[in-house]
């Protein structure tokens, strides 16, 4: 029997056994002990952000970029509540996190003590699992469970609430090698019968289509998928989270489907006769009007999460399986199908309404995206949320060497920049490009300091249109240009009935170039197309974070667009 050790010592031991070398931590009264323990461990690097929301998005970016579990340590009360947005984000997008929140000592719980909140109660619906450690002897098993649950099955965030006295109390020194949880048995096999049924249906189709979601990227089944597509000659559309599952330049890749999807992709979904979907939950942004979704198709649905199947769309063949295992199995049976006519039809749709922006009114987002495609052969593209995100999902080219990280499910503004820092910390040898808007960038701008002290060379492209563009686009199209609460230049003395930019508009705040410089970072402003390439050339050469502010046309909109709740075949194209 090993001698008893303190909870904090066991905590450090757990991190080491789990192979954690980087943690994202912000100190506070209820985590001082475990922080002090980490001080003694050179092998674990602690990243100090400037806000807990930034912290958890950094951990998400790190987890997405590396495939490892992101570890967060925050204090009780406000420290804990500040990570809630990130927990919900990670829950939506299946990102493995283990978040340790400090808690007041056991005897104070329930007293409304200083910095006490019931964080486990508050986060029950946005974590995969959450628990307060109430007995020191449970600590080892609980931490083991946390890592196991976070990374297996459909990954997700796990919260472990650690009262201060548990951290200092002596107890068993053992950290279990394995854990058996009777209520948690993630699916690790494929139901061959169902899969055969699904494949048979696919084989009988005249207009078959693969709809690929984020599950394929999480399962790292990209190469196998490409092989399956090439063998069967079946075209592919992706969701936003599925983008990059096969190279975007692949001849069988049609594009993203959904609210701002490519015309040909949405038409293909609307016209296909068998829709074979893998790793997507048929979110409303993909389906639009549920009654009109893929109206001519029989649907096969592969997902590792039982609860995602037949939830939004009732499917004909449900298959509970890991995407990778299912694709691997299908490769054994795959045969070429006669899809020439169908592919020609899809290409015709694409010719009819290609993805293209007008080029006659200055620097467009498309031009910037094309430069990013040219300038970077490999790397990680991280986006924030808004118009720039949709343009990125439309125009950014991805291949085996390029990864795409975005907040798809929750749509969290303020995600992009810290996630990019986390990605860079996890993959220091890769070029990390953050595409953000001027609105979202300001939601976690304080992380510039984190990027500086971490010497994180992140190239941040701020698409500045002076607006919260995504909502303004809705106002432009559906609310008679009443730009309530979306103009970031608006001041108290502006006329109430302002219908858009005019010569008397006040200046924009902040000056992103000066702001970057005030942190010691590099700032640049690009106003016309000729300046784009030189800006990227310069950005690649400097160290530390770089902000390039792109002054894009103020009233540019994201097209095509399907109005929320409308059928996917009803796209606004002009």
């Amino acid at each position, binding site marked *: 029997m090993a001698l008893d050790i303190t909870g904090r010592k066991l905590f450090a031991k757990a991190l080491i056994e789990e192979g954690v070398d980087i943690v994202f931590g912000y100190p506070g009264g209820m985590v001082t002990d475990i922080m002090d323990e980490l001080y003694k461990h050179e092998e674990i690097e602690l990243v100090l952000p400037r806000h807990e929301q930034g912290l958890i998005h950094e951990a998400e970016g790190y987890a997405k970029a590396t495939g490892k579990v992101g570890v967060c340590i925050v204090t009780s009360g406000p420290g804990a509540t500040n990570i809630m947005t990130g927990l919900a984000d990670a829950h939506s997008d299946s990102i493995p996190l283990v978040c340790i929140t400090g808690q007041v000592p056991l005897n104070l719980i329930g007293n409304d003590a200083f910095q006490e909140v019931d964080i*486990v109660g508050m986060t*029950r*619906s946005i974590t995969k699992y959450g628990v*307060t450690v109430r007995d020191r002897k449970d600590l080892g098993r609980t931490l083991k469970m946390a890592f196991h649950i976070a990374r297996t099955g459909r990954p997700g965030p796990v919260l472990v609430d650690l009262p201060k006295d548990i951290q200092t109390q002596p107890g068993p020194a053992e950290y279990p090698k394995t854990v058996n949880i009777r209520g*948690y048995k993630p699916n690790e096999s494929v139901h061959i019968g169902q899969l055969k049924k699904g494949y048979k249906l696919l084989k009988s189709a005249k207009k078959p289509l693969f709809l690929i979601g984020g599950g394929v990227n999480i399962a790292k089944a990209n190469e196998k998928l490409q092989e399956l597509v090439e063998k069967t000659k079946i075209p592919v559309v992706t969701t936003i989270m599925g983008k990059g599952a096969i190279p975007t330049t692949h001849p069988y890749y049609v594009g993203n489907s959904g609210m701002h999807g490519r015309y040909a992709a949405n038409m293909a979904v609307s016209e296909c006769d068998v829709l074979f979907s893998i790793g997507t939950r048929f979110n409303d942004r993909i389906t639009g009007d549920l009654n009109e979704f893929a109206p001519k198709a029989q649907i096969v649905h592969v997902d590792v999460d*039982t*609860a995602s199947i037949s*939830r939004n769309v*009732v499917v004909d063949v449900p298959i509970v399986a890991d995407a990778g295992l299912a694709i691997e199995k299908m490769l054994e049976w795959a045969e070429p199908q006669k899809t020439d006519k169908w592919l020609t039809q899809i290409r015709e749709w694409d010719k009819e309404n290609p993805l293209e922006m007008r080029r006659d009114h200055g620097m467009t987002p498309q031009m910037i995206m094309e430069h990013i495609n040219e300038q970077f052969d490999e790397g990680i593209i991280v986006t924030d949320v808004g118009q720039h995100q949709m343009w990125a999902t439309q125009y950014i080219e991805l291949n085996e060497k390029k990864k795409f990280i975005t907040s798809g499910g929750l749509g969290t503004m303020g995600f992009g920049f810290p996630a990019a820092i986390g990605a860079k910390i996890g993959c220091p040898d890769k070029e990390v490009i953050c595409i953000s808007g001027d609105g979202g960038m300001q939601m976690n701008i304080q992380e510039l300091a984190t990027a500086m002290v971490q010497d994180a060379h992140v190239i941040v492209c701020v698409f500045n249109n002076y607006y919260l563009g995504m909502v303004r686009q809705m106002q432009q199209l559906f609310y008679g240009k009443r730009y309530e609460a979306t103009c970031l230049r608006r001041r108290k003395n502006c006329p109430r009935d302002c219908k858009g930019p005019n010569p008397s508009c006040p200046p924009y705040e902040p000056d992103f170039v000066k702001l970057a410089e005030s942190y010691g970072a590099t700032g640049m402003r690009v106003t016309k197309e000729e300046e784009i390439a030189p800006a990227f050339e310069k950005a690649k050469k400097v160290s530390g974070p770089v902000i390039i502010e792109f002054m894009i046309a103020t009233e540019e909109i994201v097209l095509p667009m399907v109005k929320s709740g409308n059928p996917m075949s009803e796209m606004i194209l002009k």
Partner: protein
Amino acid sequence: MKKRWIALYVENEVGVLAKVSGLFSGKSYNLQSLTVGTTEDETISRMTICVSSDDVTFEQIKKQLNCMVEVIKVIDLSNVPIHMKEILFAKVKDCSSEDKAEVFQIAQVFHVEVSDIGKDSVLLECKATERRNNELIALLKSRFHHIEVVRGGAVAIESISTSCAGKTEYDRK
């Protein structure tokens, strides 16, 4: 919309009841009743849950419950032979002697135990199906002005013998 029953084995831990009930409120599922108690294994609790929902939602409820780490097993009791009972106390107050006589009569017919009595009130204790209890309450309400009712929510267990095979809660009294 149909009434359906689930037996749920869960970890006997702090917060599990909140998590299960939170699922119903958070996802707008229609929870009719929920009872919970420990089983022969004190680390495990068993819940009997009654929901009213359509087929698709009910499937989703079962899947969502299955997703929870703390949920050990979900058993759908909707279409299997079961024994189901609910405990009910009904206090009939402001009784005259005639009223008391009537209460005793009702008790006899309903096979209800008279478990306490005072100067002007009678306490009935009834262990019956939910439907039978509903009927008893309706009758008492129609006959007396002042009654006080507390009921425990139904608990259910699968049948052993074949004598009630094919019978579910819906067609059994």
